[in-house]
């Protein structure tokens, strides 16, 4: 399971953050904990995107994508110097 983990960038609709959370990072952690026992936040973003980066299995990514407020779970992309 660990071996098949990949990095994903998770885009969220910040306006849909449940009122029970007083900071978006807490919401992100809670969302992650609901789909994975071990996943951790690599980055949280608030200016370039609304969301975070994390390592998930494909199943966890799929499960996360179905949650309310989660817009997209996109796999990490590799860019190259030109």
């Amino acid at each position, binding site marked *: 399971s660990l071996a098949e983990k990949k990095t994903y960038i998770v885009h969220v609709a910040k306006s849909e953050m449940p009122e029970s959370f007083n900071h978006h990072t807490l919401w992100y952690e809670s969302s992650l904990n609901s789909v994975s026992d071990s996943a951790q936040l690599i980055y949280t973003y608030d200016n370039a995107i609304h969301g975070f980066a994390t390592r998930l299995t494909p199943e966890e990514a799929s499960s996360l994508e179905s949650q309310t407020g989660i817009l997209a779970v996109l796999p990490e992309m590799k860019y190259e*110097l030109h």
Partner: protein
Amino acid sequence: TTRTPQFLGLDKSADLFPESSSSSDVIVGVLDTGIWPESKSFDDTGMGPIPATWKGECETGTNFTTANCNRKLIGARFFSKGYEAMLGPIDESKESKSPRDDDGHGTHTATTASGSVVPGASLFGFAPGTARGMATRSRVAAYKVCWLGGCFSSDILAAIEQAIIDNVNVLSLSLGGGMSDYYRDSVAIGSFAAMEKGILISCSAGNAGPSSYSLSNVAPWITTVGAGTLDRDFPAEVIIGNGKNYSGVSLYRGHALPDTPLPFIYAGNASNSSSGNLCMMGTLTPEKVAGKIVLCDRGVSARVQKGVVVKSAGGLGMVLANTPANGEELVADAHLLPATAVGEKEGDAIKKYLFSDPNPTVKIVFQGTKVGIQPSPVVAAFSSRGPNSITPQILKPDLIAPGVNILAGWSKNVGPTGLASDNRRVDFNIISGTSMSCPHVSGLAALIKSAHPDWSPAAVRSALMTTAYTAYKNGLSLKDSATGKQSTPFDHGAGHVDPISAVNPGLVYDLTVDDYLSFLCALNYSAVQITTLARRKFQCEPSKKYNVNDLNYPSFAVLFQTTGGANIVKHTRVLTNVGPASVYNSSVTSDSSLVKISVEPQVLSFRENEKKSYTVTFTSTSGATTQSVNSFARLEWLDGKNVVGSPISISW
């Protein structure tokens, strides 16, 4: 750089870009391989206090502390969490876990955009002169996102996030990847947020030319930069045994070859491997190569690596011949052995001699640096080409800038070839790519921004595009290195950047965030896709008719459906007068009789700061065609002083 300032006319522009505080208030953020802070190009002599708006900092890590920054290099950060999550902890014996540049690329791009003036610069005496960036008084902030294993989107997004918080004015990204739709592409998404904050984002178009549809970074809120040549060359002539001469290029400086002709062999005949002609590692037979000059074909492995292979097999030198993939374009390299690169035609002629003469010989004559080469600029063969594969109605690249054989700062942790076996260390290196043209435009955008601090990123880009030139001084059209023929807007976009004209463009095509949101509606993006890209709930109005053709872009890409489509396409634009009151007349030139182009109104009279709209109607006169055909045209608005030009591509 030691030639582009003259090539672009910046050496005569002191009065256009006064050394005012506004020019030193502009901050260029560079996302790349980091920075070599000891480069003389980051000398901060004469620079005033760091702008009060600046929120960035210099981070500490391997061989890098806050003391490495100054009033020129005001920010240096590194982003490795995504990289390490993917590939494991950084091996600090191999790369610096800090903003320090172990590769050279990041120092090259940053100094090209913003480097201070450094007299007496050269690479082994090649390209000598005073090196400087495009915006010498701007400040630099380096964001290291690329590592030995590549550049990952999570790190790139983190760097853009931080650059927005830090308050950069221009972002320069000489990297790219894939051809994803905008809402899946981290560079496009992050750039949208930066654009919203008034940051101009300049990105390299890619080096996948001359194939069509090879562009990256094509989002309309990004300035996409292709590459052209300078009027400078580094000739190294090949003289074969029958007395014929062939021109090549080289940056080799080292032990000279004997003055007498040397035995010459084709690599394909000095190998037991089917790919021996490519001089891949371990494929050359030393007994056949020793004491000879070897002709290798270009491709698959790095050009400088082929030289190492020849040298380690006992070869004395190398002639590197282009294949059809590269045509006649010559890229000079600082080889580790005497070597020169020749074009495909020259290579074929030399091979013919090699195959026909039982005892072939050759001499390589290195001739140093030559300037004044014409025609220049020529679109680089490697520069990626349109059409735009994501939104064909947006013409890309936006423009071209110098990107071939560019001298700029380098890292002292690596030699000029980048090879592990290259122990040479240099202050400046000469390399090529759209990576090199992009920071030219980033720096020039910083200059325009310093002259017009209130202009939006779209207005700055418009100024750069509408004043770009598409013909040489003798009136002939820009050429394409890949074909030797006239280049098209799919190759050069609006043309070659002309910063002096861009300072006073007369009129600009401005764009707001709302315009881009309407553009996304026109693409039929879903609410989720728009929120992903633009970080907001935005409802496209069901009653409103959105049209991609109406994005107020400084160029036109007209699409006629091959079957069943309308034969009339209309594009509407709004011009903003950024000069004094004036009357502009439109003028259209076209290379095709297949389409009729009319502009309404044909004359626009502007007061100061006034906006006026116009519509261009394209009527296909050929009827529906089953073939994919491209033609090109140009629209200009002229008031006797300014020429506000827009390229037009028309595709069926």
